[in-house]
């Protein structure tokens, strides 16, 4: 499922950093990488000399990944989203760390646009999991902690196949919803949610060492961020629903989670 990954790259990319990313993606099951560069024709570096890309390709091939290079132009996010579809990749890899060097900063406009536009799952790499070779060693599937946020609607059911592929040490299922308008409706809703969570736990048990679930009432983004910090999650998996009317100025739930989280995000459109 994660066999082919598209990594958008820009001039000045650090080969050492990309190598670490390659090792992380390999540990998650990637075998093939598509390095994608969007040329800016007005830029000093926007010429046809793509030798730096070849250098990056070689770095990744050295760790056993098959690499291809593609380039595009025009609106960056749209070009990346389109290339991901054309190349038939399984995911787009983004990092919120490289460009700003501040790990929990708000996403830039390209990343925000891409999260909205992409029809391919997007993996946004934040602070956790640490890249191989950093202070605390590399991540392996044996200690991967995954948080799956769902409200049981269509959008949040779409990540289920990916969730099964991720595998890992612990999968915590978080259901967030608003409170019902009266105690009886609340009780009924709560018991239905618990029932569904229990079924989902059973479904996911073969793929994880430990599966737990929890139901919370409140704002979806706030609760996901809170629980993610509480359980020290490495990856938050969630579905992207169609943005609600007027949600853009404030950012929709997925965008808020991506911006505020220390854990990486796997967003399935």
């Amino acid at each position, binding site marked *: 499922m994660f066999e082919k990954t598209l990594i958008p790259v820009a001039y000045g990319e650090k080969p050492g950093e990309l190598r670490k990313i390659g090792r992380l993606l390999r540990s998650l099951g990637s075998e093939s990488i598509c390095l994608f560069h969007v040329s800016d024709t007005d830029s000093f570096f926007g010429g046809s000399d793509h030798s730096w890309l070849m250098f990056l390709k070689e770095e990744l091939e050295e760790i056993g990944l098959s690499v291809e290079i593609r380039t595009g132009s025009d609106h960056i996010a749209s070009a990346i989203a389109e290339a991901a579809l054309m190349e038939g990749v399984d995911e787009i890899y983004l990092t919120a760390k490289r460009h700003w060097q501040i790990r929990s900063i708000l996403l830039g406009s390209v990343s925000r646009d891409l999260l909205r536009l992409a029809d391919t799952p997007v993996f946004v790499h934040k602070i956790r999991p640490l890249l191989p070779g950093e202070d605390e060693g590399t991540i392996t599937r044996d200690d991967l902690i995954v948080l799956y946020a769902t409200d049981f609607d269509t959008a949040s059911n779409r990540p289920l196949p990916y969730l099964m592929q991720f595998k890992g040490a612990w999968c915590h299922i978080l259901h967030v919803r*608003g*409170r019902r*308008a*009266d*105690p009886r409706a609340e009780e009924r809703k709560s018991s239905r949610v618990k029932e569904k969570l229990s079924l989902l736990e059973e479904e996911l048990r073969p793929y994880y060492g430990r599966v737990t679930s929890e139901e919370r009432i409140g704002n979806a983004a706030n609760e996901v961020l809170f629980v993610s910090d509480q359980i020290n999650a490495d990856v938050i998996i969630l579905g992207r629903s169609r943005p609600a009317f007027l949600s853009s100025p404030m950012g929709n739930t997925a965008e808020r989670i991506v911006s505020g989280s220390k854990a990486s995000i796997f967003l399935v459109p």
Partner: protein
Amino acid sequence: MKWTYFRRETVFLLSSGIILLFIICGALQPELLDTAASAIHAGILNNFSWLYLISAFFFLAFVIFLAISKYGTIRLGYDAERPQYTFFGWVAMLFAAGMGIGLLFWGVSEPLVHFLSPPPFLEPLSPDSASFAMRYAFFHWGIHPWAIYTVVSLSIAYFSFRRGMPALISSCFYPVLGDRIYGMPGKIVDVLAVFATVFGTATSLGFGALQIHAGFSHLYGISSAIPVTIGIIIIATALFMASAILGVEKGVQVLSKFNILLAIVLLSFILLLGSTPYILNIFSSTLGGYINNVIDLSLQAYPFAGYQWSRDWTVFYWAWWISWSPFVGLFIARISRGRTIREFVLTVLTVPTLFTFIWFSIFGGSALYLQLNRGVDLASVAGEDVSLALFVFFEHYPFTGILSLIAILLLSIFFVTSADSATVVLGSLTSGGSLAVPLYKKVIWGLSLSAVAIILLLTGGLDALQKMAITAAFPFMIVMIILCYTLWIGLSQEEALPEEEE
């Protein structure tokens, strides 16, 4: 045992305790109470008068939106339920709730006072100020007060009849507070509703007593000293307490209906014996001006000229309606079970409003007619004593004495029926929404209402009544804004209800 009682009766003990403290403070240190109330009132007006305007407009827009939205077809009760009262019976009861001491007190006075003292950008006693006076009388007594009542009554009716919760304001907070509605946060919401009801009703009772006194003084030359007003309140208290304690609910209903008939007779008399075409022209042109300017009127604070005028009048009225809203809202909710939201909102917003417009056109319009065409200086009388203007106005009609006595009778019955209903509502709010209110609670609330009215009259008369209405309404206005949100949450979950019922 004591602890269980305390937990069960927290709302009653807290609210009655604080109101008792207010009464004791007012009796022993009236200056201190006046200073404190004035400081709070000034703080609220200086900083939040805009919020009253925006909130009232928002309440109106919100309920209209609900009526015309897909939620308009939702029934205030279970889907199979049908209204308990016939349409005409229901509308008559809405009249009863909407008509009260205020209409008699301000019906003649308000247009005259605006005519005499308009904002600085208008020339007093001019045709422009007459038009302004009528438009603002319509505005202050028009669709906005009913929108304010509608927010509260719709919330109570929805959460109580459709969601099966107790008829309490705190029940409407379940979507945000959850089970904490049974704890201190929920109790605080109910205590705020009790405060608003006590001070809102006490303000009306104060107005009523002042005007009954003014009527007697004018007719029989009785002393106009404040102890006489207090005496009137004490006599009225004895009457409404007897009615509330004996539980003569049917008697009160008969009195209410009789009062409405009497009010209609009085109204028809003034219409037919006054300048009828003039009055009807005033009704027509003021209605046009009102409809044409309702958005501007709603949000107009006159910050460059007339700011003080807007605070003295519009903000006072909005606060007064808000402070009345738990009481009237609860009453309207009870009689509206089984109606759809659309039917409820559209009827409550239009029918009583139209009646009020007719009332103001007839009383205010006739007063302006006398002032402008007959050279009768009623405006100066209203400027000096707003409670006296009605009786001086009657002097220019045949059967003056009978008309004045009818007005005094109407005021007295309104006083008794309003205070009786308020006592029962306060008892219910402090008994977990139950209608079986213990006797001692009825006594305590009845006495409290009158005592607060007396204390306010003693500390600063009409001014103190208005200040306390504004102060008590402020926290409840915040409660009402949250009520809109919780009602919205409840309604937006309606589609999921059948699925969750499975």
